[in-house]
């Protein structure tokens, strides 16, 4: 029975040969706290003398600040005010580059940009003070779309508004197209998407007596925040402490933005000398934090008569927003996935991220790959339709197999499962039979309607099934992991229990549970013996950010190594093998008594077979890819344009499911986010501001919108990952959109080239009218 209290040493004392810990769905480590309300999130914390912070933001997209007025009729007593001049260090949020200011000085580059910070002991007074500040801004022409940015009539970044460009080339593109029997072209668009973690962004900043800073809050990457605060405050690393509180979801939305809000909370604390809580409400969170990059993607492919790909030309443009932030990396991943999991001898991929006067776009599950995978998969369905081929056969003919090369020249050596995931998805869903059945039924419905016989309620419904194949490179791109140089450690607690020391954040995905399993397996103990330290930069080493589907594979791999090392040390000390948890603890306690503390640390070492060139963008972009295929079944109402997802069937190869239930949870949750992106979620803009920054009108799927999921976990081990594991977090997000487009086309014959496929867009497509924006 799972107790509500945190598990302490018990039960496993008698276990001599522990059950395997890996591959088993043990109780989620943080589960009991979360179902009882005991888990403490940032907004649940209170400190003596704490103030509540608020942020004055720009209402225009671009302009020059002329004057800031404070209403003299307002009672300003007890209000702390901070602006850019109060920043002790540099006014920048240090990331890849340093162009984003912590607070606007003179120039406004996007709506809802932070200008001024206020704090008061009473949150209602702080809120009232917001209304008593007037910022006088001289408005300038703003760039608000990809098209405007490319036209560069108004220049907001350099001469061409381009933040970053990548070019990937392989083979001879012109010769490829010349040899093609058929050339198919398509243009695909996708808009912003809000991560919509249920817990809004929030931080509490404190100034310490020793002149340092402590920040607590909701985040994925404690060391990103740590790094950014050093620059803002001009403090050495040891004077800054960042502690992750229980984090209510992230999905990338708490990758880079927490550095901004941490800087704001810390600045108010620095100025007031009191703890300051800065927690956004939903409106502010949606309006001002990062989103998925919108993209405009042109795909042109050449095929031989049987569908074989002979040339692929992809042009990707992503909207980076007002500052560089993470855009180059998002763009890079988008470009590297743009060809799809297909073999093609002649490829050109051009990718650009451009500047607009909108809040910076950032990380969101998939990190650029969902956009390009959506485009290539929509395109492959179009190709199948134009060539009169079954979309499954077209994909099977072109899907990468072992030994194939990617556009960057990476030879796929291990754990290559594109064909297997396609086969297993198709078999599971009964692809061919179901496709034919829907076609028969749709034809029958149409005949009946023409004859004046309508279904109950007069609804004209059509059903369709669509397929998509995707891949996702696990861990950082190219040389990224080398630059990160992650470190993780295992140490012995005073009671002789192993304790995981890593900066990886539990954000709901199950990172800490999986860590305990992998460590337990190597130590030969039960997972609940293993402790996990809270990510706190004073306590844990920098094991890199909790992003890029890297936590299990990379940090888990380091911890597996640490566990091997720890066991070896203790067995050498004991001069015998350790058998089970009780024995482990006995030996560990003796070690602590006689030798003192024990800590085993491991740092990332690049496997010698990974070769990557940042200049030519050639080589091994990722240690390996995870592969997935999905079949989505939909029902379309021809009169209302509504689409109901009936079922999603997916097979995903993740190497090894360390915790099958959590892996399935990642796949189901990621798939639903993908379905939401494809059908419901649309950020609407007016003059550069988001006007649907509410849950009332930014629509995410409910339990009634979510289809049943049929998930097949494929385990084709990757020898470079712990226990064969590859990444699982992001792949599920890459797949659904392309399959939804295809399913709707199958159901109705209408092909919609912009997502989300809202009823309005679908009705326009059904009417055969030209898509207008």
């Amino acid at each position: 029975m799972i107790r509500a209290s945190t598990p302490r040493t018990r039960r496993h004392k008698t276990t001599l040969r522990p059950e395997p810990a890996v591959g088993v769905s043990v109780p989620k480590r943080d589960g009991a706290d979360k179902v009882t309300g005991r888990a403490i999130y940032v907004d649940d914390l209170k400190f003596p003398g704490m103030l509540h912070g608020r942020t004055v933001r720009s209402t225009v997209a671009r302009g020059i600040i002329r004057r800031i007025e404070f209403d003299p009729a307002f009672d300003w007593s007890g209000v702390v005010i901070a602006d850019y001049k109060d920043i002790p260090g540099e006014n920048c949020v240090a990331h890849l580059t340093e162009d984003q200011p912590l607070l606007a000085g003179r120039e406004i580059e996007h709506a809802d940009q932070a200008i001024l910070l206020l704090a008061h002991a009473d949150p209602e007074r702080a809120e009232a003070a917001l209304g008593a500040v007037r910022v006088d801004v001289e408005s300038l022409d703003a760039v608000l779309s990809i098209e405007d940015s490319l036209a560069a009539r108004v220049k907001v970044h350099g001469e061409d508004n381009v933040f970053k460009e990548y070019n990937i080339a392989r083979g001879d593109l012109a010769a490829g197209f010349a040899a093609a029997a058929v050339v198919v072209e398509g243009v695909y668009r996708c808009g912003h998407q809000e991560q919509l973690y249920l817990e809004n962004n929030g931080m509490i900043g404190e100034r310490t007596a020793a002149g340092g800073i402590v920040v607590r809050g909701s985040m994925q990457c404690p060391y990103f925040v740590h790094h950014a605060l050093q620059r803002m405050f001009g403090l050495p690393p040891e004077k800054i402490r960042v502690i992750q509180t229980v984090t209510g979801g992230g999905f990338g939305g708490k990758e880079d933005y927490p550095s901004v809000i941490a800087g704001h909370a810390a600045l108010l604390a620095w100025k007031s000398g009191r703890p300051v809580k800065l927690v956004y409400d939903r409106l502010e969170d949606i309006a001002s934090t990062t989103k998925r990059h919108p993209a405009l993607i042109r795909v042109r492919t050449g095929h031989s008569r049987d569908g074989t790909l002979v040339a692929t030309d992809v042009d990707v443009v992503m909207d980076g927003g007002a500052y560089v932030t993470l855009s180059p990396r998002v763009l890079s991943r988008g470009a590297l996935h743009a060809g799809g999991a297909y073999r093609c001898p002649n490829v050109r991929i051009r990718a650009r991220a451009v500047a607009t006067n909108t809040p910076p776009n950032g990380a969101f599950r998939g990190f650029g790959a969902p956009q390009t995978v959506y485009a290539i998969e929509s395109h492959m369905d179009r190709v199948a339709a134009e060539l009169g081929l079954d979309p499954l056969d077209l994909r099977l003919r072109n899907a990468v197999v072992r030994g194939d090369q990617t556009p960057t020249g990476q030879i796929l050596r291990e754990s290559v499962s594109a064909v297997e995931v396609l086969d297993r998805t198709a078999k599971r869903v009964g692809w061919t039979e179901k496709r034919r059945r829907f076609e028969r039924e749709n034809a029958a419905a149409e005949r009946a309607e023409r004859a004046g016989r309508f279904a109950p309620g007069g609804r004209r419904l059509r059903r369709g099934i669509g397929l998509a194949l995707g891949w996702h490179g696990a861990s950082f791109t190219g040389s990224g992991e080398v630059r990160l140089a992650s470190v993780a450690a295992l140490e012995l607690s005073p009671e002789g229990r192993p304790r995981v020391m890593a900066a990886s954040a539990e954000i709901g995905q199950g990172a800490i549970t999986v860590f305990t399993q992998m460590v337990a397996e190597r130590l030969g103990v039960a997972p609940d013996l293993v402790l996990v330290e809270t990510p706190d930069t004073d306590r844990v080493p920098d094991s890199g950010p909790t992003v890029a589907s890297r936590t299990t594979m990379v940090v888990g791999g380091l911890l597996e190594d640490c566990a091997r090392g720890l066991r070896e040390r203790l067995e050498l000390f004991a001069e015998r093998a350790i058998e089970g948890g009780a024995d482990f603890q006995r030996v560990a306690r003796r070690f602590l008594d006689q030798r003192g503390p024990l800590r085993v640390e491991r740092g990332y070492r690049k496997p010698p077979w990974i070769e990557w060139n940042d200049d030519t963008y050639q080589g091994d972009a990722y240690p390996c890819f995870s592969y997935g295929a999905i079949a989505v079944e939909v029902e379309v109402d021809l009169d209302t344009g509504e689409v109901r997802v009936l079922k999603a069937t997916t097979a995903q190869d993740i190497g090894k499911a360390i915790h099958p239930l959590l892996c399935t949870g990642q796949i189901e949750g990621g798939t639903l986010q993908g379905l939401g992106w494809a059908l419901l979620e649309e950020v609407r803009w007016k003059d550069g501001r988001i006007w649907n920054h509410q849950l009332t009108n930014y629509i995410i799927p409910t339990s009634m919108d979510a289809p049943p999921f049929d998930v097949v976990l494929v385990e084709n081990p990757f020898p470079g990952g712990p226990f064969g594991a590859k990444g699982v977090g992001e792949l599920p997000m890459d797949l659904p959109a392309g399959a939804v487009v295809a399913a709707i086309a199958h159901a109705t014959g209408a092909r919609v080239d912009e997502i989300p496929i809202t009823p309005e867009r679908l009705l326009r497509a059904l009417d055969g009218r030209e898509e207008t924006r």
Partner: protein
Amino acid sequence: MSAGLALDFTVNGKRRRVRVPPMKRLLDVLREDCGLTGTKEGCGEGECGACTVLMDGVPVNSCLVPAVQAAGVKIVTVEGLAKGPALSVLQRAFVERGGTQCGSCTPGILVTAHALLQRAKGRVPGDAEVREALAGNLCRCTGYQMIVNAVRAAARETQASARKRAARAAKPGARAKVKSARTKAKPAKTKVKTRTKAPRGRKQAGR
């Protein structure tokens, strides 16, 4: 600040008196004045359901309820779902079946599901029924399927143990449903039987 309304109500079985402005959100009264931070705010406008609590057994969005409406009401929050240190059947099902990931929606979902199971009175609600009951509670992590599975598994487990108790209490063959046994036209026999066996059955169940 202390100017306000003296408010008496019951939270998780305990009587409380707080002094708050009458229009203060019940959500904030629970979190700030009662120290019960298990109830979360997700949107502040009654869309996400993270702040769901029971008022006299009915699930409400506590971000939309002014304190004054809670006078004399029995409130249940996520902190009140478990009796003692052990998790409730529903809570345990969520942990075992992947019903909670980031945990932000979990308190509200548990409260809504708890109310559903109370209404179902031992019946196992169907998939669609659970989805409909939870339609006012947004979850961004799970895709909902594991939540639905957990709710139904908890209902099945509760039903199974109720049946076991009833079977132990009654003679084999008289495995009448608790409800029908109570409402049967000829209850005398059953009642007698129940009475004679009840003490033993109850004890065993208690252990």
